[in-house]
């Protein structure tokens, strides 16, 4: 029964996300436009060989990141509509509630991006099934980690406007200082500090693993997939733990009021 309650919390967040039909449709249109317009045009400008599939795979990870961030906005929405009080009054433990939300936030992002990943795979072509499964697993962890990260930031910042602006800035920094859109060698070439930061960026880990899994790792020269895998696992562990802990403390301290 207790495990069921955790699943119900997860289920709620997943179902809720898919109620935002307008957002989902617009995001999907944005994703397809990015591929059909920006990807095709930019790949003609860039000297990197096979940049188009490279970009498409990076775009999938970026979309996953954006969708997993959305749970933070839900938290503000709930505080505004008083739904938080309702959730806190339910016969569900605080831990179940917090953990369920982190998992739900990641899972729904993954479900949403799933079809987009399928589009990516169709565009990219070749797939090594075993590598792909491992890459998919790492994307799962990445999505949960981003969800925990979003919850952590959302409960630390009381204003939804500030959260919105901060996430925009973080998105710009985290995504741009990663290998989502360009290979690491080019980032390092531009500035060694950028390259160093990109090396430890979870978006880099997820993007590299996805490309490795889908068989286009040649252009990123990923020698050892274990390192980004460990990186993703660490990111997941830290933010699931941190998000859970901080959310839990804020709830108990009445910080949502």
């Amino acid at each position, binding site marked *: 029964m207790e495990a069921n309650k955790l699943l119900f919390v997860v289920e709620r967040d997943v179902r809720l996300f898919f109620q935002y039909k307008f957002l989902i449709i617009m995001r999907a249109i944005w994703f397809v436009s990015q591929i059909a317009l920006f990807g095709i045009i930019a790949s003609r400008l860039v000297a990197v060989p096979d940049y188009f599939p490279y970009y498409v795979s990076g775009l999938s990870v970026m979309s996953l990141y954006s969708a997993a961030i959305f749970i933070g906005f839900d938290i503000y*929405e709930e505080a505004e509509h008083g739904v938080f*009080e309702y959730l806190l*009054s*339910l*016969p569900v433990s605080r831990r179940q509630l917090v953990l369920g939300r982190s998992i739900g936030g990641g899972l729904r992002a993954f479900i949403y991006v799933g079809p987009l990943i399928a589009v990516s795979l169709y565009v990219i072509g070749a797939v090594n099934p075993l590598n792909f499964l491992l890459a998919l697993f790492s994307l799962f962890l990445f999505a949960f980690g981003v969800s925990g990260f979003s919850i952590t930031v959302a409960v630390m910042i009381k204003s939804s406007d500030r959260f919105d602006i901060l996430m925009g800035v973080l998105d710009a920094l985290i995504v741009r200082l990663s290998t989502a859109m360009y290979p690491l060698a080019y980032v390092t070439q531009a500035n060694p500090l950028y390259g160093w930061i990109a090396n430890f960026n979870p978006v880099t880990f997820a993007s590299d693993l996805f490309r490795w899994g889908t068989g286009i790792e040649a252009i990123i020269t990923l020698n050892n997939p274990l390192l980004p895998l460990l990186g993703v696992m660490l990111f997941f562990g830290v933010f699931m733990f941190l998000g859970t802990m901080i959310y839990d403390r804020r709830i108990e301290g009445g910080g949502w009021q």
Partner: protein
Amino acid sequence: MAPIIRITDLTKKFGNVTAVDHLNLEVEEGEILGLLGPNGAGKTTTILMLATVIRPTDGTATVGEYDIRKNPEKVRGLLGIAFQEPKMLWVSTPWDIVNWHAKVCGLSTEERKRRVKEVLESLEMWEARHRNVHALSGGMRKRVEMAKVLIQRPKIAIVDEPTAQIDIVGKHRIWNMLTELRDEGSTIILATNELYEADVLSDRVGIIHRGKMLVCDTPKKLKDSILGGDIIDIQLEEAASPDIFQELKKFKDVVDVLQLKPFNLRIYLNKVEEVIPKIVNMLTKKDSPIVSLRMTEPSLDDVFVHYTGLTIEEAQKSGE
């Protein structure tokens, strides 16, 4: 039998504002306890503390056998709440809301389906079950909020202004459903600022004002506690003589007698049901026929004025 809820010195401060001030109260199992007070009196804060949503600054309460500070999860397992403001995101539908609520509260699939349909139908929300919340009126949203508790049938149901924004037919329907819920074994805490609602539904009424519990008893006893609270208006065939005036004042439970017009008397008294035959008898003996006689009991409004010195409207304004 031990009370199902025992509140001891419960206090909540928000900064310098004391929302609930050393509140003490016992709620018996199976009763409907009305918490009567204007907005801002501390009813909702008390409810949120009982539901372990917010922590008390001081004092505590036991719900069932569990302390709200030590066993909040166990406490929440006994409770079901219908909030004052419907708590729902605008993209949700009534069906999603109540169905998910029933799941989390542990109802089996079969029972859940049956009860969700039954309650939504009786609240006339079945047709609108798949409409988004933003398309519903305030009253419909309130009904969805109430549906959660009615489907859950918790051991202790807390309903905060359950019929606000609901039309008179809907009010009666909800009152009947709350009475049924009580009859099926639930204990109900009804927070309200509607005097009539508190009067007709509650087995006992507690008056809260500025975070303090002023008095708590049955509506009858609260009304009887006002000396001279009962009123009899008598119209006589002829003008009342001074002799009748004096005789009336001699009755033990008569507090005051006023002559509104030459033929009209107003008598303030206690225990109207015991005194009235004696008055009628006296007037008959004095050969002073009665044209009409009207009895008025004090309302909870009078009780509220008696204990707070303000009408509930005045208290509401002073609390804003």
